[in-house]
């Protein structure tokens, strides 16, 4: 079932949590709402679920107005950040809850409920834990119970509010790829909220970047990462180096060096370079480079992070090299090197971060 959000706004008193947001989620898609806290992503998710109402605008499920339907009748599965399991019920009873509260005419038989719960326990890999209470489970297990509980009622839409936010890093990584596989299996239209850009880029089919109650960019993970629409998106999706630049005749002038840019406008601007797009050279090699001094080297993991200070104005920047390149250069603290940007992003709109 597709979800269409049309011009949704939500005010909490003076504060506008959402400002005229429109978005279309296609049937079977897995979409991430990504943004910092206070960007309105959770409010939007709760409005889709019917747990919150918009001040203006509407929500359509499969082309039908859903705004007048309450949470109970929207057939939406909702997974909460802190699991929200029923503490006094076993795992089995938690998962069966949605089926047991159905009106008598629609309620499956006892045997059917049991079969369905067992099937879901298998799906979330918790067979054998049916009689445990939530307090006897780990965080990752609890979240999987919450997911099974939401799936038990065969929802048309699955909504997840920071589903892995309360878990530790390793479990989070595990559940992330597991969620992706689960979605590939079930193909249920899903929207999940996260403030972790890595999570969004890794799991989602499409990423919706939100900021201050508005959508900044919508696109595939590659698209938003490679072609960010504005400095906010660029900055939010990973670390970035800032260079004050002047654009002149299609070239950005940064200190003594230049780089070609696509914008024709002549103005003072800021150039953005991702750390892995910065290369370190021993000699100038002809091309446009900046002189810099190595301040610090973090040589842990597959990539090596090098902190540099520009020689002309002392501004700090960070470069990320592959281990091979690092060994080839044999860099040391305090050495003087040349820095070259492979890719420089310049945004025409004036934007402050």
């Amino acid at each position, binding site marked *: 079932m597709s979800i269409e959000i049309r011009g949704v706004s939500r005010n909490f008193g003076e504060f506008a949590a959402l400002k005229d947001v429109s978005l279309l989620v296609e049937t079977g898609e897995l979409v991430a709402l990504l943004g910092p806290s206070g960007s309105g992503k959770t409010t939007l998710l709760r409005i889709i679920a019917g747990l919150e109402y918009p001040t203006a605008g509407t929500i359509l499920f499969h082309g039908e107005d859903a705004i007048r339907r309450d*949470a109970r009748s929207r057939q939406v599965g909702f997974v909460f950040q*802190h699991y929200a399991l029923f*503490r006094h019920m076993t795992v089995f009873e938690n998962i069966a809850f949605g089926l047991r509260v159905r009106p008598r005419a629609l309620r499956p038989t006892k045997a059917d409920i049991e079969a369905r719960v067992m099937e879901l326990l298998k799906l979330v890999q918790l067979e054998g834990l049916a009689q445990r209470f939530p307090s006897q489970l780990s965080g990752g297990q609890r979240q999987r119970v919450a997911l099974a509980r939401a799936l038990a009622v065969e929802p048309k839409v699955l909504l997840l509010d920071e589903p892995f936010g309360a878990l530790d890093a390793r479990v989070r990584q595990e559940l992330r790829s597991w969620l992706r596989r689960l979605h590939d299996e079930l193909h249920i239209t899903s929207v999940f909220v996260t403030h972790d850009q890595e999570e969004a880029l890794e799991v989602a089919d499409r990423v919706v970047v939100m900021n201050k109650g508005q959508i900044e960019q919508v696109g595939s993970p590659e698209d938003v990462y490679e072609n960010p629409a504005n400095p906010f998106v660029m900055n939010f999706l990973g670390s970035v180096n800032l260079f004050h630049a002047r654009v002149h005749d299609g070239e950005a002038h940064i200190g003594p060096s230049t780089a070609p840019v696509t914008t024709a406008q002549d103005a003072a601007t800021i150039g953005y370079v991702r750390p892995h797009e910065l290369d370190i050279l021993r000699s100038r090699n002809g091309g446009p480079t900046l002189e810099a001094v190595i301040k610090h080297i973090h040589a842990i993991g597959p990539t090596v992070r090098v902190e540099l200070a520009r020689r002309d104005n002392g501004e700090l920047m960070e470069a990320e090299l592959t281990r091979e390149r690092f060994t080839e250069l044999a860099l040391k603290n305090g050495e003087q090197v040349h820095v070259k940007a492979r890719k420089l992003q310049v945004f025409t709109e004036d934007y402050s971060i």
Partner: protein
Amino acid sequence: MAVSLASQTRALSPRRILPGFGLSLGYTVFYLCLLVLIPLSTVFIKAATLSYTQFWAIISDPRTIAAFKLTFGASALAAIVNAFFGLLVAWTLTRYTFPGRRIIDGLVDLPFALPTAVAGICLSAVYADNGWIGRFLAPHHIHVAYTQTGVFVALVFIGLPFVVRTVQPVLQDLETDVEEAAASLGATRAQIFARVLLPTLFPAVLTGFTLAFARALGEYGSVIFISNNIPLQGEIVPKLIMDKLDQFDYAGATAIAVVMLLASFALLLLINLLQWWSRKRLGMG
């Protein structure tokens, strides 16, 4: 050799992380002995001066049995009523904001602070057949003051704060996301209340019930003023004990006290076990 072995075992013996266990336990036992155990043991000692037949004669006296029935019956009934309405009051005070909420919240504690005799006098004045409320009830042949109903009303009054104050913090801590989860799974408001909220609140309600019940069993001051205190009719156990004391029948008074004490203890223990069980089920054990 033996010395070094001994010192070694001492070093290896597990030590408690929290210091002062011996001191605090010793103080607790000493304190309880001084205030509870020793005074109460005199009751048993005095009652032991009676022979078994004498003891039985006092206990099986219809007047004693009537007093026990009234005390335990009215107390249980009052505690049940308090469990329901205390939950309602706690719900109203935590779930809604309305002008005057703080004042009502403060009013709940009044039965704690008010001298019970004052409460008894006020209640009997209001509920007497010519009182503010009693005059509307009398034409319907409902008489509250100076009847067993009056005893019940007084016990409800003094027991109210217990349930409210035990349920309130639990209600405040209740996460709304559990209710939202139930709603998005298709549960109606009534189903959410019955299947999700009530089971979570049950241990707290039970605690409040126990406290209100225990308080009602021992209540004297307010009941004396609102009951007619007629033997076999409106006489509660504490009043019966007082009567015996007035007639210098100390052994008789302690015999009744012993039974009262044991019965109360057995009941409270039973409720505590029930509570331990329900808490364990909630994963709070």
